[in-house]
């Protein structure tokens, strides 16, 4: 008998409303026709999401090394008891010999709120280690740091996505929703059809940029200069909202002083954006009755990503946008639970409810919910790349548990991270497939997939949604809540843990009560009845908060902060040896490190990892479309199929990061970190390119395993 379960797509932060239909045949996915964020639309990834449920590659049993202690020996199936036993022994042994912080956890922005919360609690209560962070550090940390400082609250979009269609002007900086969140484009298209004017800032003429009224195509890494240049023009043209600045903000004068020196021809020279286009852009924003400014990874994944986000927040505040109808600043969250994942304690410095781990009041509150002494809680630990960079080194983590992440592909300077992982005493990984990272592990746990579990996800708007279970996981596959609870039990801390998603959620809500991301009034029945609840929602009678900042900001005095920020050259500017700029990103048919989407034939058929370069650049290096090319940076080399297109700047090469092996673009990226957020500079480093000679070409590019040149 067929059964249809409403739930949400397993991929990006849009969390499209879908149904999973389970009957006599394979499960299928359909779009919920009227869910407010996708309005019946789904992209190719969503339509094929069910293909992974019965995928032959799926892990169905724990795996352990045939020879314990030798990670070059083959992985063999094992019982849960044996696998858990090995992990527990490794943890206990390491902590006895090297201290609590010698064991660490690495989480993911795709985990449900419940899993993210429980992983954080596991680290602090079961392991009592300070070493925990997650891959969201590589996504949202810059915008989050800036929003927390400027607004006192970090909710990606502090307004419903539908406001995009209502705004008379929209500025998107370094975002390409047409390929990364395709159904969200309906709101952009509706807005344009209603006469809105959109400006897109991107070094590539992406489908999003081509649909806009105006496309600004700056040199990667110069978005901050562009923001200050726009503010300069806003001041000169009298577009400031002086009443708003006076009533709702602090710190404008210092920002005005900085903006004074970003006159248009200086900004034109830094960014490559013509002065006329700058003037057009500020005219569009400055004269609109309502306007949104949105940033995404293109602006944020830089060593000055936090400052860049501040630059655009400054512009939004100067124009008087945040808190006004169909207006404001937002960041477009990427990962499926990139929002909820950064709120509930898997971040190095954070406790549930977006509380600060260093804050004694926050520690006391959460410790009380957990039934422990606040003194037992560890201190804040290192950020993601710092944690990975120190693996297996003195003072670093020696035993690592990875859940829902594939850093061998997704971390910057990925081959270095791989070497560090190989330096660990012990690595345990929970995943649905044998990912590049799982392939390195001592123990691999199989885990349940999206359609096999209950939980909640918080989408890019801060709307808390229900992920519903449509079918049981295969025999022998547990979910991560059960895994963490069982592991805690073996470490003698089982009494603090529970594997039931709804109970975990209720505990999460209590732990978050009174914090910035307050879920106290949210419950499973309520989410189901209301099709999602916007946080903050401090009590059962509270309607939730679709729009933040209408009256006040989350800062102590209720005012938003202007923060003066200056343009800096990227951490690694091009030079004679590495003369071009490499920027990385996403393509429509793949998701993140590709662990899932690379296994869907409908998404990968006939595609190879492809790097885009401009015809003028290609000609200089004798490269034709379809040639195999090698990209080289100070970190390493990778190979791609060349796509020669004038949609990319002539000084810039674009490559997606969804592949590993020979096509691992993160083998090239720079680990230069933003000092404020710990965000790596994924979006700009210096690169050299050459066409591979025929005798060097072994087609197709191998993406399944690390580069063979990489010695173990």
């Amino acid at each position, binding site marked *: 008998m067929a059964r249809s379960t409403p739930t949400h797509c397993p991929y990006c932060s849009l969390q499209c409303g879908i149904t999973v239909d389970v009957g006599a045949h394979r499960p299928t996915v359909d*779009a919920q*026709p*009227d869910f*407010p964020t996708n*309005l019946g*639309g*789904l*992209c*190719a990834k969503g*339509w094929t999401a069910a293909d992974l449920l019965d995928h032959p590659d799926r892990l169905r049993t724990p795996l352990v090394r045939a020879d314990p202690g030798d990670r070059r020996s083959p992985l063999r199936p094992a019982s849960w008891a044996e696998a858990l036993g090995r992990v527990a022994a490794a943890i206990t042994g390491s902590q006895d010999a090297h201290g609590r912080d010698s064991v660490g956890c690495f989480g993911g922005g795709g985990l449900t709120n419940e899993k993210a919360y429980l992983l954080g609690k596991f680290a602090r209560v079961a392991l009592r280690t300070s070493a925990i962070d997650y891959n969201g550090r590589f996504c949202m940390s810059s915008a989050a740091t800036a929003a927390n400082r400027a607004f006192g609250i970090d909710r990606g979009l502090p307004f419903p996505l*539908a406001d995009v*269609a*209502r705004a008379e002007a929209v500025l998107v900086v370094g975002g390409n*929703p*047409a390929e990364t969140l*395709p*159904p969200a*484009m*309906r709101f952009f*298209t*509706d807005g344009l059809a209603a006469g809105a004017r959109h400006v897109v800032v991107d070094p590539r003429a992406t489908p999003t940029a*081509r649909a806009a009224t105006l496309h600004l195509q700056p*040199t990667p890494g110069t978005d901050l200069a562009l923001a200050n240049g726009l503010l300069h023009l806003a001041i*000169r043209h009298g577009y400031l909202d002086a009443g708003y600045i006076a009533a709702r903000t602090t710190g404008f004068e210092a920002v005005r*002083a900085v903006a*004074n*020196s970003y*006159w248009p*021809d*200086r900004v*034109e*020279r830094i*960014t*490559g*954006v*013509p*002065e*006329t*286009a700058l003037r057009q852009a500020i005219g569009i924003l400055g004269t609109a*009755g*309502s306007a949104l400014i949105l940033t995404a990874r293109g602006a944020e994944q830089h060593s000055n990503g936090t400052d860049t986000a501040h630059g655009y927040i400054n512009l939004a505040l100067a124009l008087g946008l945040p808190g*006004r*109808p169909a207006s404001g600043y937002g960041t477009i969250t990427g990962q499926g639970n990139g929002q909820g994942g950064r709120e509930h304690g898997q971040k190095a410095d954070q406790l549930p409810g977006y509380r600060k781990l260093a804050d004694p009041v926050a520690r006391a509150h959460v410790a009380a919910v957990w039934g422990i002494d606040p003194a037992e809680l560890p201190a804040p630990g290192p950020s993601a790349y710092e944690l990975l960079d120190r693996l297996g080194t003195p003072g670093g983590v020696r035993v690592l548990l990875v859940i829902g992440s594939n850093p061998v592909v997704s971390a910057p300077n990925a081959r270095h991270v791989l070497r560090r992982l190989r330096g660990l005493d012990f690595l345990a990984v929970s995943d649905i497939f044998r990912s590049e990272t799982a392939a390195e592990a001592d123990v691999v746990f199989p885990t349940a997939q999206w359609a096999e579990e209950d939980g909640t996800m918080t989408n890019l708007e801060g709307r808390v949604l229900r992920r519903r279970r449509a079918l049981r996981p295969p025999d022998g596959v547990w979910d991560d809540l059960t895994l963490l609870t069982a592991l805690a039990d073996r470490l003698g801390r089982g009494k603090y843990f529970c594997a039931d998603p709804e109970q975990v959620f209720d505990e999460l809500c209590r732990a978050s009560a009174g914090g910035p991301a307050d879920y106290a009034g949210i419950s499973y029945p309520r989410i189901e009845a*209301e099709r999602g609840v*916007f946080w903050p929602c401090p009590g059962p009678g509270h*309607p*939730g908060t*679709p729009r933040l900042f*209408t009256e006040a900001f989350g800062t102590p005095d209720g005012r938003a902060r202007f923060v003066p920020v200056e343009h800096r050259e990227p951490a690694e500017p*091009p030079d004679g040896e590495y*003369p071009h700029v490499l920027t990385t990103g996403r393509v*429509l*048919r793949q998701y993140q490190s590709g662990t899932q989407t690379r296994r869907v034939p409908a998404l990968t058929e006939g595609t190879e990892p492809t790097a885009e370069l401009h015809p*003028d*650049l290609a*000609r*200089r290096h004798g490269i034709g479309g379809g040639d195999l090319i090698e990209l080289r940076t100070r970190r390493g080399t990778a190979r791609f199929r060349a796509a020669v297109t004038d949609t990319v*700047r*002539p*000084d810039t090469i674009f490559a997606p990061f969804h592949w590993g092996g020979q096509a691992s673009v993160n083998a090239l990226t720079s680990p230069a970190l933003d000092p404020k957020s710990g965000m790596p500079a994924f979006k700009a480093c210096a690169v050299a390119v050459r066409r591979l000679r025929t005798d060097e070409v072994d087609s197709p590019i191998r993406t399944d395993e690390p580069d063979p040149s990489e010695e173990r």
Partner: protein
Amino acid sequence: MRQRLVVVGNGMAGARTVEEILRRGGAEQFETTVFGAEPYGNYNRILLSGVLAGAEDEAGIFLNGLPWYAENGVTLRAGIRVTSIDRAARQVRAADGSATGYDKLIIATGSRPFVPDIAGAREPRRGFHQGVFCFRTIDDTRRMVRYARDHEHVAVVGGGLLGLEAARGLQAHGLRVTVLHAAGHLMNQQLDAQAGGILRRSVEQLGIAVELNARTAAILGTDAVTGVRLTGGRDLPCDMVVIAAGVRPDVELAAASGLPVGCGVLVDDQLRAAADVYAVGECAEHRGRVYGVVAPLWEQARVLADHITGADPAAAYTGSRVATKLKVAGVDVSSMGVVAPAGDDEFVVYAEPGRGVYKSAVIRAGRLVGATLVGDVTRSAFLVQAFDRDVPLPADRIDLFFDRGDGGGAALDPAQLADDAQICNCNGVSKGTLAQAVGDGANTVTAVMERTRAGKGCGSCKSLVGEIVGWAAGGAATVDPSDSWYVPGIPLAKPELMAAIRERRLTSVSAVFAALAPDGAEDAKSKMGLASLLRMMWPNDYVDERDARFINDRVHANIQRDGTFSVVPQLKGGCTTPAELRRIADVAEKYQVPLVKLTGGQRIDLLGVRKEDLPGVWADLGLPSGHAYAKSFRTVKTCVGADFCRYGVGDSTALGIAIESRFQGLEGPAKMKLAVSGCPRNCAESYVKDVGVVAVDGGRWEIYVGGAAGAHVRQGDLLATVDSPDAVLTLTGRFLQFYRENANWLERTYAFVPRLGIERLRAVLVDDSDGMAARLDAAVAESVAAYRDPWLEGGRPATDGQFRPSLPLIDLPLVPAR
């Protein structure tokens, strides 16, 4: 113990260096004193030409005002000139007699104007002739502006950048301007002769006279300037002279203190002139070059700050690439690198003297080493980056100068597209797949979309999908029936939809979805259109479901930019009474209404009312709703009519009030604005209203329909001329009802009337060609009878949260756009 840092010079280089030092935590290392010859903070000298022209406010050019220095712990000695440096004693002496010790010294004295040898320009003891000016400082600028007020003809000595800026600026003050330039073409430092010639023509077209090869020998006139004498002996009459013949590094102080000086103060890659003494900016000479534009100065400031604070001990300045982009005397000029080719250089030139456009580029070994743009600088962004960063150049050199785009915008011809051309990116659907689906029997766009999932992602390819389906269906173009649907969620055109609703007696939006939507699915985008239609069809029996309404309709007021509402009470025909005005005034005071304004429709608008105050406002007003927020009959604008007006031929006021009384609040597919004018002078603007009535001689009335004067402007079409006010009422009602029944959702009359054609409307409504006039009259009468003032809800909210302050949790249906 902090070191003592003394900076001599508070211009763009000196002050910037201090900023960069502070940014590196220099406040903890240094106790900083800055000497500035001018009694101000530091300002952007580039903008002085804007100040001279009156285009720029003086206050707006300051980068750091006087308070900034104190706030950052910097001692500013503004207006105090340093007279000597005692390097042995490590101190500087200033004009005020003070001596200031230093551990590190930065010289940033900048440039001074170069004054050629012109007799009478300057007396050694008396300074400049009172009618002769230089153009360097804010005080120079002020003096020129003051002097320009009562003088008529200025000679500007120098046809370079600064001279042309001065010329244009003074022209803005009403002076006649002659530029005297010693070289053979203008801006000879930056431009070649051809570009200079084009610039000259552009400058002359602005009314500025230009004399080339003109060397100025003497100033004529003793107390007042009467003219200048050129070296050839020719005299040019004028009463003001500006000398803008370039600048020279100001090295007097450095030279006197024994520092190495060439053209400027000689510095190494750390900007060091001697131990613990540095020079930065226009006064510094580095590797044989002196820079006069801002970007290199700031690069020097950064290196010097890195070095002096130890932030980057390896910091080194290795020289700058110089590019300038300015509006010179109203003409855009961009110039970078070398001006002319040498040796094997490739030289690309585009010249269009008629339009004042000139573009050239010098390419050396495939790299851009120089470029000049005059008149059209749109490509300077690309060129300056190619120049700075060695960006690969286009093979087609014309692309250096013109952004030819990709020829986009041309419509795609489905037949021309390759079979594998991707049409839907989101779901990876090619033209071939779409054609295949048509071949397999999918015969509508919707069916093809369902089958292939094309258009089911972001939705932006729908129109292209439609064209391809049409093409694939082989000329027998499949019309997508959904195009004719009244709302997207119900697959019926308006007449069929109305028939089905009537037949099944569907009186609520949810009932319509249940009965007529595919699978009974509710569609958020369809709700508002359906609600409007149902209210029109069932004036008495309509079952209101509030989530089908737009916020304006839910609270009966117009939401404003800031989330407050505007309240417009009904004032029929724009007429009111002293008592009503008093009540309105009382309400405005009681609820602290921020803005009271007369509307274009002759009403009084109370703007900025908080949502929770709406019921109280309505109750206290005691006036019915003016319907200024709804898709409905809005207002009847009237002129004063026959009683008071000398020209009036008909009582427009009375008729307007009668029309409004009858049709008030009548809902429709879009808003309806009416007017009645008492004579063809048309003071109430009847020709541009949805329905406009005009009194004409003989007691007759003309009725115009389909006019508009908003974003869209259209003069209405004459529907009929009738004999009595009663006939106006009848025909107006009949037209409105016909419009309500036949217009698409959100279709204003200005689109509806031309769509059907005025002849057709006349036939149906005036001549009753279809025999429906009586039914239309009865239908509109029923709606009129069912009218109820929505503001009565104020005392009895329809829902608990109707007037709660926060916006509701449910996602608001959007007003779809057509």
